[in-house]
């Protein structure tokens, strides 16, 4: 990570750099994100759901009070969840627990750090607390994940100290089109940067409003310099696999060195966040079928599933296990076909064109 800009010695009175503690180094912060790769991080609203996610094979859970689709529906101000609920979730599972704070709300973050959660998501899904500034994430021991729609945003968040990036997508819509748009934007901007000379990169950094050294690093690597997950609208196992595969044909990369430079990095996402109402079902009759399918995938033991009624039909629990399988076997179409079968009613979702501008959560953050 190119944070160590070498200020000329003794140019000022301030000590140059500080002795980094062995804990919470950037290496340690990004280390956990690296361990989550190839996995699915699931939104959960209570300990019971967290246990279901753990048994489904989730590599971590995101603790929320309300899933994004409900935040959308209910309106009002969305804030950090109650620490008590987060503690309950933490006590219930052995996998990492994440939770969200409002953009700029560093005190919500201090609270979550004090509880000892594993990652904080400074999230546009909650109502921003600061419309100009994000949290200075370097000041915290706990690492952060942030959303981004494009390369400039991603690099600005990393510059502020984010150790893990996700696409924003359009959370709570069950519509993967925005997540696809965001990852394609990031990828094509990196490809452009990779083909540029240094002088052009200085100018491109200005255009993207991104720090130059991080842009240069991304261009060199052919990918973001931190782990990047897909998020926002992933509704089926096929959606999850779609976000994982992005790099086209690596065989071509071995043949043409020029192409190899551009394709050198893995341009696909490293994993997926799956949210909005993985656990909800709008129809009790469907629930019975869902449990049956769920049972087939998990084990003969019936795992209780809490039910919540709402106006929108959400992705039913049967998709949790197949999504995990899809993320592991994203390049094996036969496996994908198998796990996509018989999932019950998929999330009805929302068309992006039906959203008004102020309903678009991805516009928050900058």
């Amino acid at each position, binding site marked *: 990570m190119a944070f160590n800009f070498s200020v000329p010695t003794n140019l000022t009175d301030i000590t140059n750099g500080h002795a980094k503690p062995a*804990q919470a180094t950037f290496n340690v912060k990004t280390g956990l994100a690296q*361990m989550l790769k190839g996995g699915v991080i699931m939104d959960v609203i209570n300990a019971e759901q967290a246990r279901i996610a753990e048994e489904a094979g989730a590599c971590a859970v995101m603790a929320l009070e309300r899933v994004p689709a409900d935040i959308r529906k209910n309106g009002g101000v969305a804030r950090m969840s109650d620490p008590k609920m987060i503690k309950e979730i933490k006590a219930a599972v*052995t996998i990492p627990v994440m939770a969200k704070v409002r953009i700029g709300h560093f005190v919500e973050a201090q609270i979550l750090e004090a509880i000892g959660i594993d990652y904080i998501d400074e999230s546009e899904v909650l109502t921003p607390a600061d419309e100009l500034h994000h949290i200075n994430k370097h000041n915290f021991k706990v690492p952060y994940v942030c959303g981004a729609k494009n390369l400039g945003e991603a690099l600005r968040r990393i510059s502020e100290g984010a150790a893990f990036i996700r696409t924003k997508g359009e959370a709570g819509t069950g519509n993967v089109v925005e997540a696809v748009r965001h990852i394609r934007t990031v990828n094509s901007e990196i490809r452009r940067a990779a083909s540029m000379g240094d002088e052009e990169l200085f100018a491109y950094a200005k255009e993207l409003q991104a720090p130059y050294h991080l842009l240069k690093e991304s261009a060199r690597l052919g990918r973001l310099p931190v782990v990047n997950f897909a998020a926002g609208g992933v509704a089926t196992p096929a959606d999850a696999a779609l976000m994982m595969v992005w790099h086209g044909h690596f065989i071509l990369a071995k043949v043409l060195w020029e192409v190899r430079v551009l394709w050198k990095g893995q341009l696909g996402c490293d994993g997926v966040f799956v949210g909005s109402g993985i656990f909800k079902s709008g129809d009790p009759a469907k629930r019975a079928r869902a449990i049956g399918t769920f049972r087939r995938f998990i084990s003969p033991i019936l795992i209780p599933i809490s039910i919540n009624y709402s106006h929108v039909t959400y992705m039913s629990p049967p998709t949790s296990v197949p999504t995990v399988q899809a993320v592991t076997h994203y390049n094996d179409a036969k496996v994908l076909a198998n796990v996509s079968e018989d999932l019950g009613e998929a999330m009805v979702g929302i068309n992006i064109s039906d959203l008004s501008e102020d309903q678009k959560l991805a516009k928050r953050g900058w």
Partner: protein
Amino acid sequence: MLALQGAFIEHVHILKRLPEVAEAILVRTQEQLESVDALIIPGGESTAMALIAERCGLFEPLRKFTRSKPTWGTCAGMILLANEASKTKKGGQQLLGGLDIAVNRNQFGSQVDSFETDLHMSAVLGESAPPFHAVFIRAPIVTALNSEDVQVLAKLEHQVGQTDTETIVAVRQGHLMATAFHPELTPDDRLHSYFVRLAQDYKGKSQDVVTMAN
């Protein structure tokens, strides 16, 4: 390289730099597992890996593989290779087993307690070799050594548990090796070289190349 979940690509990147490694194959199916001479089980989430392995029908083949073929488990991999593990999830944790040790998951706590430190691994690296910089991410620790055959490869210099055993962070038992930390998160390839030599020894013949599975 067991590629069901986790930081497998980091291991592959190190293996590719070692000339003795013929090929680093990502293992997700039984055929791929059967094609390799040695296996690395990466860091990641042991709960997720075990569940995914079961669903792919890979769990029993993995257990069979680790009975006799060189296998190295890092962090989550160490947990899966242990005969016993504590602080497992409420549904219970399936383990591959093979290493006569007991481990405690998430010994140090959550992510804010993760750390980096230097380890003197004279058994592996040599007496006066520079220390190995080790990264511990929500790491486990060995709580008991249940056989004389288990060789301690590294210990933490500071006390982290109640007993002296609870400083052991790397072990070897014949063809099995386990580390609680992540060599794949640093550029130091000395432990990977050590494992490749281990694998070569077990391959029997004096072949220069080893097919590695990650």
